[in-house]
């Protein structure tokens, strides 16, 4: 999106947490576009006070989950002609930084008192129901897509009551490499008419774990090995819940537990990844 109105595309991103911030807080990062292309460096988005934008009250440690794992989208929330910043976070709530034009934003965020089901709110605004105003879509740690209907109408400040399910939650269980599987959890959403048929399509990113037999083992052998491994792990976890008072024994038990835990890779390999799912509009 063109965040500062200079006619060039900018890339806006959230982040998990900046290392240079005391406590934890995910800054909003921008790769500014210009007539020469994108700038060389990604830079934190700043408020009109010149300081990096942070959600909520940074001095309040109790609200840390409001400020991490941020996900921004730029939208004219109040229909005043300039872009505002609607942001999600780890907690699953939504905040707003009012735009002041030209890529400037108010330093203080507003708590919209709005939250998704699950964590990792992921707002994206689009006219989903075709009534002329912008609704809010969101992914979630639970998977799926949620949406909040804007009831204000075109040309008015976005007004929503709450989120409801649009696309059902995905499975967060690992899948096998040859398994038929649908979308998983930890979703991020985007919407557009991808194929130009005049209908809105949805892109949804997810996060999943794909298991495969190690060393060419058959699935049968993997299942047997995993069953045996899980039984041993259960015994060891039980032992660890009732530890000896001797610190040497505790250390030995931890080492044995870690060794057993790692031995899973002898029969099973796991790949953590994420896919992009396309839902074409009907």
């Amino acid at each position, binding site marked *: 999106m063109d965040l500062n109105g200079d006619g060039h595309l900018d890339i806006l991103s959230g982040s998990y947490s900046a290392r240079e911030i005391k406590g934890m807080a995910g800054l909003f990062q921008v790769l500014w576009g210009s007539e020469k292309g994108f700038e060389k460096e990604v830079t934190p988005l700043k408020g009109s006070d010149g300081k990096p934008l942070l959600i909520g009250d940074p001095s309040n440690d109790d609200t840390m989950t409001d400020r991490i794992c941020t996900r921004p989208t730029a939208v004219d929330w109040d229909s005043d002609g300039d872009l505002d910043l609607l942001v999600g976070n780890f907690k699953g709530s939504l905040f707003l930084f009012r735009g002041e034009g030209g890529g400037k934003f108010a330093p203080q965020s507003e708590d919209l008192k709005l939250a998704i089901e699950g964590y990792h709110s992921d707002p994206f605004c689009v006219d*989903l129901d075709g009534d002329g105003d912008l609704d809010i879509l969101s992914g979630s740690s639970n998977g799926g897509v949620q949406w909040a209907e804007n009831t204000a109408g075109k040309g008015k400040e976005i007004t929503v009551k709450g989120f409801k399910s649009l696309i059902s939650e995905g499975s967060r269980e690992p899948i096998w490499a040859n398994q038929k599987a649908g979308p998983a959890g930890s979703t*991020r959403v985007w919407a557009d008419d991808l194929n130009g048929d005049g209908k809105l399509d949805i892109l949804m*990113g997810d*996060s999943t774990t794909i298991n495969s037999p190690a060393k060419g083992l058959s699935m049968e052998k993997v299942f047997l090995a995993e069953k045996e491994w899980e039984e041993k792990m259960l015994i060891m976890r039980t032992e660890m819940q009732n530890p000896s008072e001797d610190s040497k024994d505790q250390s030995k038990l931890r080492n044995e537990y870690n060794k057993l835990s790692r031995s899973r890779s002898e029969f099973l390999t796991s790949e953590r990844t994420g896919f*992009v*799912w396309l839902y074409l509009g009907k």
Partner: protein
Amino acid sequence: MKMHSLWGFFVATPLALTTASAFEFESPVRMMAGDHLVKVQSPGYAAPSWADVDGDGKKDLLVGQFSKGKIQVFPGKGDGSVGKGDWLKVDGKIVEIPGVW
């Protein structure tokens, strides 16, 4: 839609939607870039967006990921399908969003 063919056994499951006649969707399919699945590096967390970043008038698929905050760009063909992807780079250097690792 011509592309986005399914790959081997990765057949999508039926989509469960809330019933709403104004917006209904086909069953989901994994996005493909040519013959390859669009996917991200470990630990996952694919974050897609759709915008014309190469200025050819066709929107492209951008996919962010958690690992090092890198972004893949898959050039759009104008019909909703995309070609082979590459990392988003500026002056040959891969762009990394700070604050993820």
